């Protein structure tokens, strides 16, 4: 028995059993059907701390640690500079080992932080209300689809084909239960932007809404204004990388109905795509249809300010099968990371991150575009990620770059599985890419035979 986590001495176990009036621990399990009992699990023997560390180190050493690489991979997960102070705060047990704030009086730390987080998401997206987090950008988009269906009571939903391919697949999975028909809207092969004619033609009487990326998966900045003009009758959801909103006009300024996004870039580590943070914001009038936990301000018996969970009557623990969503646990701790990140960067910092990423990406894109064997794949405006077309096989390029301790670009075909993307690669640049890395990347790319 690992005494480290289980404090009981043999004497105490005896004493406790006798207090219960049981002869053995086994007696407490008597109701379990004897014929189905398991005698011994076929698992490892318990390891000491040193041996657990050794095993984990062994596993980690079989990975290419991107700390030692220049990273030009994106596709929804980005390597940004992360202030060191974040990790020290978020590891505090009071944040890490607390549960959902059911007892508000002893959860004011969590609750006030969520209120601050909601405020920041509203400010950045330009929306009225935000919840306190979703699992990730993909599931947040799927919940937006379900919310549109619930508001409009219509079972046809449009999704831009240029959205993150994994998001589209998640939406298709979520649509099966309520039997919502998902139809994709094409993008222009020239600009990489939503084909507005196709969008117009596909809006039917039973269309509930439309989901688009801003930026889209190819890195292109969509023209939300024009999209909104042709989607006046349906609910428009914009899925964003919120870092871009340090410079790009807020979706709220275009009067969109729902904003979702992946906020891993707000201080989150890469973790193989396993430290995600879904954001979800909407207009005030749709607040009661929103999924997830929402925190509100109130006062206590002495009239002092405090925070509690509000609108719980939308949620599963009260409404059960009539709830707006089944979501219970969310990604609270990752929201803490984002809140601290945004507090440290602040107004100037978010803009600085966006501008640096933008400038560095454009600098690299220009250099690549000038090379003989590479072109930009699309003519639409892009932010910090862009698609290139090469004569070489993108996988060959990627593998050659790895030899130079450069991770990326991403062969687009691997994610979209579309033959038309056979020669396309996605290049992501952030402020974390130093100018000399960018120059090196460009020269290696040019030097590939």
């Amino acid at each position, binding site marked *: 028995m690992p005494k480290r986590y289980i404090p*009981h001495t043999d004497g105490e176990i005896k004493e406790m059993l006798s207090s219960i009036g049981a002869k053995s621990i086994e007696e407490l399990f008597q109701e*379990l059907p004897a014929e189905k009992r398991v005698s011994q699990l076929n698992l490892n023997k318990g390891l000491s701390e040193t041996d657990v560390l050794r095993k984990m180190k062994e596993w980690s050493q079989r990975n290419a640690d991107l700390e030692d690489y220049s990273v030009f991979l994106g596709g929804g997960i980005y390597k940004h500079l992360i202030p060191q102070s974040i990790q020290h705060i978020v590891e505090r047990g009071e944040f890490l080992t*607390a549960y959902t704030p059911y007892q508000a009086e002893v959860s004011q730390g969590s609750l006030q932080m969520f209120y601050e987080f909601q405020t920041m998401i509203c400010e950045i997206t330009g929306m009225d209300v935000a919840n306190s987090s979703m699992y990730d950008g993909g599931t947040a988009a799927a919940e937006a689809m379900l919310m549109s269906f619930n508001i409009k009571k219509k079972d046809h939903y449009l999704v831009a084909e240029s959205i993150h391919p994994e998001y589209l697949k998640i939406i298709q999975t979520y649509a099966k239960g309520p039997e919502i028909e998902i139809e994709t809207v094409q993008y222009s092969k020239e600009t990489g932007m939503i084909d507005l004619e196709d969008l117009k033609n596909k809006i039917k009487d039973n269309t509930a809404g439309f989901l688009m990326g801003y930026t889209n998966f190819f890195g292109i900045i969509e023209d939300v204004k024009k999209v909104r003009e042709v989607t006046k009758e349906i609910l428009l959801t914009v899925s964003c990388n919120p870092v871009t909103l340090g410079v790009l006009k807020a979706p709220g300024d275009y009067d969109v109905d729902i904003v979702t996004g992946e906020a891993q870039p707000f201080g989150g580590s890469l973790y193989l795509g*396993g430290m995600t943070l879904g954001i979800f914001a909407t207009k005030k009038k749709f607040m009661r249809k929103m999924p997830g936990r929402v925190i509100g301000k109130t006062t206590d018996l002495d009239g002092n300010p405090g925070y509690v969970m509000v609108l719980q009557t939308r949620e599963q623990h009260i409404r059960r099968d009539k709830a707006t969503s089944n979501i219970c*646990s969310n990604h609270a701790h990752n929201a803490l990371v984002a809140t601290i990140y945004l507090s*440290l960067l602040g107004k100037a910092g978010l803009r600085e991150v966006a501008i640096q990423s933008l400038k560095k990406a454009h600098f690299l894109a220009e250099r690549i575009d000038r090379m003989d064997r590479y072109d930009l794949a699309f003519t639409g405006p892009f932010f910090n990620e862009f698609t290139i077309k090469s004569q070489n096989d993108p996988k060959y390029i990627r593998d050659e770059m790895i030899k130079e301790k450069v991770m990326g670009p991403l062969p687009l075909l691997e994610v979209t599985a579309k033959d038309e993307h056979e020669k396309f690669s996605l290049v992501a640049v952030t402020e974390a890419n130093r100018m000399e890395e960018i120059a090196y990347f460009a020269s290696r790319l040019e030097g590939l035979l």
Partner: protein
Amino acid sequence: MRRDNKLIFEKGAKGRVGYTFPDENIPNYRLEEMIPQEQIRQISPELPECNEVEVVRHFTNLSKLNHSIDNGFYPLGSCTMKYNPKINETVAMISGFVNLHPYQPESTYQGALELMYFLQQALAEISGMDEVTLQPAAGAHGELTGMSLIRAYHDDRGDIKRNTVIVPDSAHGTNPATAAMCGYKVKQVESDEKGRVNLQALKEMLNEEIAAIMLTNPNTLGLFEDDILEIQKSAHENGTLLYYDGANMNAIMGKIRPGDMGFDVLHYNLHKTFSTPHGMGGPGSGAVGVKAKLAPYLPVPHVKKDEELYYLDYNIPKTIGKIKGYYGNFNVLIRAAAYILTMGADGIKSASEIAVLNANYLRNKIAKKFKIPFGTKCMHEFVADGSSLKKYGLKTLDFAKALLDYGVHPPTVYFPLIVHEAMMIEPTETESKETLDHFVDIVEKILEQAEKEPDKLKKAPYTTPVRRLDELKANKDLDVRYTK
């Protein structure tokens, strides 16, 4: 210590920052050269302007307003608030795990895949299932995955009449909510006088429209569903599948396996049973285990091994599709794997044994103070009825708030719904006998106080960072964001 009521937005000063970027010679393009003029943001979001010291102090001081496992006892029923080992944090911080991009080639993260494969195998062994997917982000997300698998299974067989799911009246709220999200009608089966699923009623409800029964065993009263073999037989004879809500798995590890009890699909809560921290409500992991007959529908990708190489299998023709981006909450998976390595087969079993011992020890003592409506013993948790407080004009809520003044987190209250004034108490195995005895002392003290000065208890707590909060007002005058 006095609480500082200021929000981060009310601190700092114009022009302050908490970061430093490298000084680099970045090309000086104008924004209009890069993006269309009309898409450039004119008004910056109102974010804080603070330096590092202010931010560190703000959040450190906020953290002090929280109760957490690291602070003290947290017997929140159904939530398995066991100690979250510190070595799990150390290993989750190893650079070779942290700094991996989901789209780098598989050959460059074989160690991460091996860790995931190890976890899949270990979880399958613990639950008696054939395959495990680690993708779902939380328990409810695991339920969504599991119920989608059930739907895919029936649909694939052309068994499309099945449009209803049965859940017990004691079920977690996520069960009916999930079933509804998967397009199913929900029917509730009542509990019998023993607090178990009413077997007869359940059998009568079974017909060709019943797709699945969702159960947790032990149930939310902390009682083992002793008719489980009979339930599974009737269900399977009817072509109905059995879903196991793994929220209560901490009661049975190494003793009995859901797979052997006849469950077809289940979700684990790695953030409960497998010790990963709850982080104020997430991220968790709701890994899902299935019997072989449901494996053809698993979400993509699935971690597999081909001789010496680990890989992500996307070639699952009948898959329900994708359920989450990338490959699951990897930072949670690392911690759960560390827990299993640390505990091993015997440790896992001891965890459940001592969890059940602790619950019974506490139950026995609390039974002298409160009515415990069902059973004479329990598994890992039990539900007491606070109705006896009525004679003092008090409710369970008052009792719960009074506990806060003694530095103890209250049990889950008013759940399950079938017990009036419910208090659901789950001590977990990591609490010592002294902690449990101390809790009993506190309960006695509060009951004495309830008798002597009930009005005072109605206004508890007194010593917490804030006093009792006005939830009605919060919902009426909704204020969900700060504005200057």
